[in-house]
């Protein structure tokens, strides 16, 4: 199968795939850091921007990716996966997304490696940049900090989607055919999130969302460790990971065109030999300018072991003054008539630059651009949008106040009143239910939290169909009373159906009716006698 591919092409292709994989990981992890990313365009190529895109290399991430790849490339059955998960401050974690870079067997022999494949990989990276902002985890990651953090894990091999819960969605970022197979990049993301938005819960402070389906032990304990999607100001970290040592690996920056009559881009062997070396292993290019290895200043990160990132206010992209020009067609040549088109000509623009590259990531203290658009954006409710109308899938697990241990223990007869330990000892106690038997140390601060933990033990996936609120018996709270021989419940039941009033029962009623009718004439006579008194009385009222 490889006989059609020249060895140079094969080497190039392998290199492209390797760096594509590394850049993919960088894009994904950087998109989950919780900050806005900004890189500069540069009109002159520096020789170190792979795929002609300015994507920074965080050394730790590169290191992890290389460790996972271990010198291999994605191939059939061996996919590179980046798993994004969320970890709460209580230590619970949940997988949010799995990004997969896969290779299948469908080859495209005709395609030109060093031009078409390269450009398509570049396009695929751009698509990845766009798609990473569109899945629900993006909004979650922008709000990470005190209550939860976002972690990433890279592994190589079989894709494991089971941790995403039921009904996860898949979005395909794109595919690129190559002579050795088709590269596919896709993302599977969880939609089974139940998150509070301020729209729904205005008064309760967010504990953290009520998350279903995630209190599972990590099924793959032997796999690679999780890493936070933030850069810790760790002294040891910075030293361990070398800066981009790929000074030997130069990305392709030179292309060539053939005479216009043919209009086909070919890179022939002749070009390879005569033109300046495009991709060689021995060419050393000084890596400069783009600050791949940046020693961050102290970030003021919170508790160091959790590595909570601080939300950076590195807001850029200020609102420009509206002096815009429609620069549509080029200046030379005939200008096609276009409606609503203003005068042409470029304007000496004051390019609003990003912060110096060194500072973009880590300048927590100095939001460089003046206008900060972050104040308004995302200031509203914490809502994770997803392309598929997430609101309808939100449902809250609440546990009724009078429910004992849910589901499993419904059939137990001895449901008792809450706080029974304060009641006289002639009642039986449920040992394990925190509702009934509040432990000495107040570890369950709220009923919700208690029920969450008990939910967790009952497994992950199928908990949704059970009733949350089951009233077994009417056991009113706080009703045990030593004074009365009976409790409120019994009292209520007994006197719920009092006997009928005698006057309202039918036979007695009938009798009295008859009597009433008979006595009417007498009563009328009496009243007529006293008419004058009645009239006087009425007068006083008026």
């Amino acid at each position: 199968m490889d006989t059609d591919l020249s060895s140079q092409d094969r080497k190039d292709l392998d290199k492209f795939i390797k760096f594509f994989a590394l850049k993919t990981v960088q894009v994904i992890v950087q998109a989950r850091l919780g900050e806005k990313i900004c890189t500069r365009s540069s009109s002159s190529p520096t020789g170190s921007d792979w795929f002609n895109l300015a994507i920074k290399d965080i050394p730790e991430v590169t290191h992890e990716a290389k460790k996972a790849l271990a010198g291999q490339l994605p191939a059939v059955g061996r996919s590179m996966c980046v798993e994004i998960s969320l970890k709460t401050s209580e230590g619970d974690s949940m997988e949010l997304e799995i990004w997969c870079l896969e290779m299948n067997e469908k080859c495209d022999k005709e395609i030109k490696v060093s031009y078409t494949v390269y450009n398509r990989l570049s396009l695929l990276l751009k698509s990845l940049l766009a798609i990473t902002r569109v899945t629900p985890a993006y909004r979650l990651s922008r709000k990470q900090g005190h209550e939860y953090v976002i972690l990433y894990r890279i592994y190589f091999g079989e894709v494991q989607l089971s941790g995403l819960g039921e009904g996860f969605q898949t979005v395909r970022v794109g595919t690129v055919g190559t002579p050795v197979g088709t590269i596919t990049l896709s993302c599977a993301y969880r939609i089974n999130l139940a998150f509070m938005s301020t729209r729904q819960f205005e008064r309760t402070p967010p504990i953290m969302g009520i998350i279903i389906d995630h209190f599972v032990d990590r099924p793959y304990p032997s796999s690679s460790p999780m890493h936070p999607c933030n850069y810790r100001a760790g002294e040891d970290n910075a030293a361990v990971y070398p800066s981009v040592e790929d000074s030997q690996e130069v990305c392709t920056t030179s292309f060539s065109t053939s005479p216009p009559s043919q209009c086909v881009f070919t890179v022939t062997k002749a070009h390879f030999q005569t033109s300046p070396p495009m991709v060689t292993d021995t060419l050393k290019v000084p890596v400069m300018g783009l600050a791949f290895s940046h020693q961050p200043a102290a970030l003021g990160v919170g508790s160091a072991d959790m590595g909570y990132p601080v939300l950076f206010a590195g807001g850029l992209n200020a609102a420009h003054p509206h002096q815009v020009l429609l620069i549509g067609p080029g200046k030379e040549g005939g200008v096609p008539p276009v409606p609503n088109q203003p005068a042409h000509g470029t304007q000496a623009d004051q390019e609003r630059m990003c912060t110096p590259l060194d500072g973009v990531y880590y300048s927590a203290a100095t939001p460089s651009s003046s206008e900060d658009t972050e104040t308004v954006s995302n200031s509203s409710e914490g809502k994770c949008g997803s392309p598929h109308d997430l609101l309808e899938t939100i449902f809250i697990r609440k546990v009724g106040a009078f429910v004992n241990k849910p589901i499993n223990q419904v059939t137990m007869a001895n449901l008792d009143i809450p706080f029974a330990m304060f009641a006289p000892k002639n009642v039986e106690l449920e040992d394990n239910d925190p509702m009934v038997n509040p432990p000495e140390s107040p570890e369950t601060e709220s009923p919700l939290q208690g029920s969450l933990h008990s939910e967790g033990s009952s497994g992950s996936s199928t908990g949704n169909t059970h009733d949350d609120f089951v009233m077994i018996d009417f056991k009113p709270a706080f009703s045990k009373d030593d004074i009365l021989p009976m409790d409120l419940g019994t009292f209520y039941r007994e006197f719920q159906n009092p006997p009928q009033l005698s006057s309202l029962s039918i036979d007695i009623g009938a009798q009295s009716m008859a009597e009433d009718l008979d006595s009417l004439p007498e009563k009328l006579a009496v009243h007529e006698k006293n008419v004058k008194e009645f009239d006087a009385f009425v007068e006083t009222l008026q």
Partner: protein
Amino acid sequence: MVGTGRRCCGPSGATPAMNCRAEVLEVSVEGRQVEEAMLAVLHTILLHRSTGKFHYKKEGTYSIGTVGTQDVDCDFIDFAYVRVSSEELDRALRKAVGEFKDALRGSGSDGMGQISLEFYQKKKSRWPFSDECIPWELWTIKVNVVNLANEQERQICREKVGEKLCEKIINIVEVMNRHEYLPKMPTQSEVDNVFDTSLKDVQPYLYKISYQITDSLGTSVTTTMRRLIKDTLAL
């Protein structure tokens, strides 16, 4: 609702072999969301249709500059997108979108309109004929402006429009991923027929933006007809 209508629009008098693929997207937004929604879609398309600046060297080789990107948060929509780091390009788009928004708001408009982004190639003709513009990709975004009564509806609209835009981005990426016709990489003399080389830092394909507002005459006819039919049925 998304229509990915793929009709082949005939180019303006050029060779019939050339096909222009057309994609249509539809959004319903509130008045103040129009600008951001349009910018999000246009920037996403242009992100995929821009390269770094070409630098031609001897022997017909060229090198390509680097394209930077940046995140943009929307103020009126729960949404964020990525755009090319080029202030000139951003200004150009904002100007066009601003005009579109003003036209939508203006009199004679029913709140419906569409903005089109067309990528084209120039074909030089001999004198006295002027150069032809041959479109090869046309994106049309249909906009329907809704008016909302209270703050709660606006809040819901923020989120809904955010979700819709997520869908649009996925649709755009899907189209881009088909790897269909792209103009061939030009030689140095031809580069201005394919790319817009006027920007300092990036080089998008030649594009033009135009818009149409559905005039009130058109829509009022529709509403009159609707009323007539309703009245007839009510009887």
